């Protein structure tokens, strides 16, 4: 189409960057939290439900107190409670963490919708924008670079988490529990205690990711608010090889890929939009297959994870 050309290419790129920055935060928070949980040797597949509970409770608290940041905190606390529920159930003998996760996924989504019924109409205060594009006079560039503090917190959190995992006593303990429960038991560590802490922190992060959905982007409480972000983030953890820094790139890449469809259509390239819609999933699949091996387990995978046993 004639609308293509130089400006078209640039505006597509700009739209993808802007969209990646807007969309990726929930993926980032959920995958950071899940990295921590999985490092302790447990999988929490219920994060989609935690995300919805976080989104709902964050919206409710922000509405009640008038402060979106208190909403984020409330969402985190709800998420942590859900994490503890998962950890509590999994600490019982012969309970499978994947099955508990799926149950909590369905329960959390349904419960959030049930409790969130009166929240559809009122409008809660929204988290503020940070204008990273203040130096530019291009309105589309400024719009693309308008981000939220949570994204920046999430990006800073990643190296902090990596450092904690590798340089602190608690990090070592967590990795020991995740790599060999027998060794940890021999050292006198409370395996369930460590895993409960890790799952609760993971739940806290997922709750915050949910608050981002309801309080910033798209910034409303609706019943179908989450469209698989919580579940995809679990895949992103594997994709990121349980490395928090990689989680940042995985989340941004996934966010950018999901922006391809609307960005191309906006400049007039409208054929094959279903294909572009599938792009992030195809990308994840291709990268997972490319990096898989039949000879050894995934590099970085905690050996206590039930998928590795």
């Amino acid at each position, binding site marked *: 189409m004639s609308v293509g050309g130089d400006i078209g290419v640039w505006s597509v790129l700009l739209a993808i960057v802007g969209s990646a920055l*807007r969309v990726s935060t929930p993926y980032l928070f959920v995958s950071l939290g899940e990295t921590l949980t999985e490092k302790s040797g447990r999988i929490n597949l219920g994060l989609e439900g935690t995300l919805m509970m976080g989104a709902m409770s964050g919206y409710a608290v922000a509405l009640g107190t008038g402060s979106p940041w208190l909403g984020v905190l409330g969402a985190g606390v709800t998420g942590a409670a859900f994490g503890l529920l998962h950890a509590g159930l999994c600490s019982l003998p012969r309970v499978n963490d994947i099955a508990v996760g799926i149950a909590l996924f369905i329960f959390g989504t349904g419960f959030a919708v049930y409790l969130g019924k009166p929240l559809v109409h009122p409008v809660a205060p929204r988290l503020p924008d940070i204008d990273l594009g203040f130096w530019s006079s291009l309105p589309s560039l400024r719009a693309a670079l308008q981000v939220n503090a949570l994204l920046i917190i999430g990006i800073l959190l990643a190296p902090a988490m990596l450092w904690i995992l590798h340089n602190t006593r608690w990090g070592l303990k967590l990795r020991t529990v995740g790599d060999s429960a027998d060794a940890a038991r021999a050292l006198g560590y409370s395996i369930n205690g460590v895993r409960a802490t890790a799952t609760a922190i993971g739940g806290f992060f997922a709750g915050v990711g949910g608050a981002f959905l309801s309080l910033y982007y798209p910034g409303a409480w609706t019943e179908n608010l989450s469209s698989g972000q919580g579940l995809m983030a679990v895949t992103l953890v594997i994709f990121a090889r349980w490395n928090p820094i990689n989680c940042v790139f995985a989340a941004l890449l996934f966010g950018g890929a999901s922006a391809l469809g*609307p960005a191309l259509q906006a400049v007039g390239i409208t054929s094959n939009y279903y294909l572009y819609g599938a792009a992030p999933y195809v990308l994840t699949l291709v990268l997972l297959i490319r990096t898989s091996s039949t000879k050894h387990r995934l590099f970085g995978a905690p050996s206590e994870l039930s998928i590795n046993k």
Partner: protein
Amino acid sequence: MTKQHNRTRRQILIGSGSLMAAGSFLAAAPRPVFATPMTVGFIYEGSKDDFGWNQSHAVGARKIAKETGAKLVEQEKVPETADVERVMESMIQLDGAQVLFPTSFGYWPFILKLAAKYPKVLFVHAGGLWKQGDPANVISYRGYMEEPHYCCGIAAGMMTKTNKIGFVGPKPLYFIFNNCNGFTLGARSVNPKVTSLIIITGDWANPVKDADAVNNLVDQGCDVIISDSDAPKVSIETAERRGVHSCGYHTDLSSLAPKGFVTGAEWNWAKGADFVKAWQTGGKYPNLLIGGFKQDLVAISPFGRSVPDAVKSAVLKARDGFTNDTLKLYHGPLKDNEDHLVLKEGEVIANDDSAFKTKVNFLVEGTQGQTGLKKQ
């Protein structure tokens, strides 16, 4: 889960799209006349305050109850499965409902099943699927939403400063393209310089994708947006945040955008009051009713605060044009956006020509985008 059901709802509609051409049939089966106030049951697939399809029916339900004096019973979140059969039977047997409004498209096969079993109950379905041979105690009705989209387009064409307006569509289906064409034709009827941009999200309602589509359209310079998402709440709020004008869909969404709201394309399900009255008094009723403003099946939302009087009167004039059938949506000469002549000079498509409308696979001149559908 909601999405799943919605899809079924539409799939059924597409499958039977050709049936919509059938026009309306009148039925006059002998039946008892009810003296006491009737009980009317409404069944929703989602929640009735979703700022979308379900809310439009809930609004209609209240108007029907008020107009006919009927008692209203309601149930939300009824899946398009055998569940709806149980809900309908319980409304008939326990609540004594004499008229049922199962509002989701995918309820259709269950309606047909129960209608044969309960001939003394009237079943009113939103969809336009009834055909000769279906039970006489069933009504299927639906509105031509492209007409109110045309009205929104007029407002958009007059209010845009960038001469670019945006349309967010959920799926590449004929009625979505009709709506988009209505929007574009309306805008270009008052401002030939207008280009409309279309984005298809691929999901009936996906808040993140809806918001992203609106953001992309605004980034491309669109300053009036309409979103045909099943839950347009997020699109309207995003447009408001970006400081552009927005038009609603399904029901009155003016409260979501106090600054930028223009008007909106609405269903007028309250038309169902006529059916309730006819059923109560033993009068005649149509089994199939598809129409626009003329048949009183669609409406426009109250104008937003920012709308100038000149725009209001132009929009209302177009609405009256549809109502008295002097204004036709599709008339020649009409080109599509690939420079093919669709209608020759002097060719006119009647507003209730469902056969033409269900076959729409083109976007009119001035639209940037493609339908992705095969051309004949």
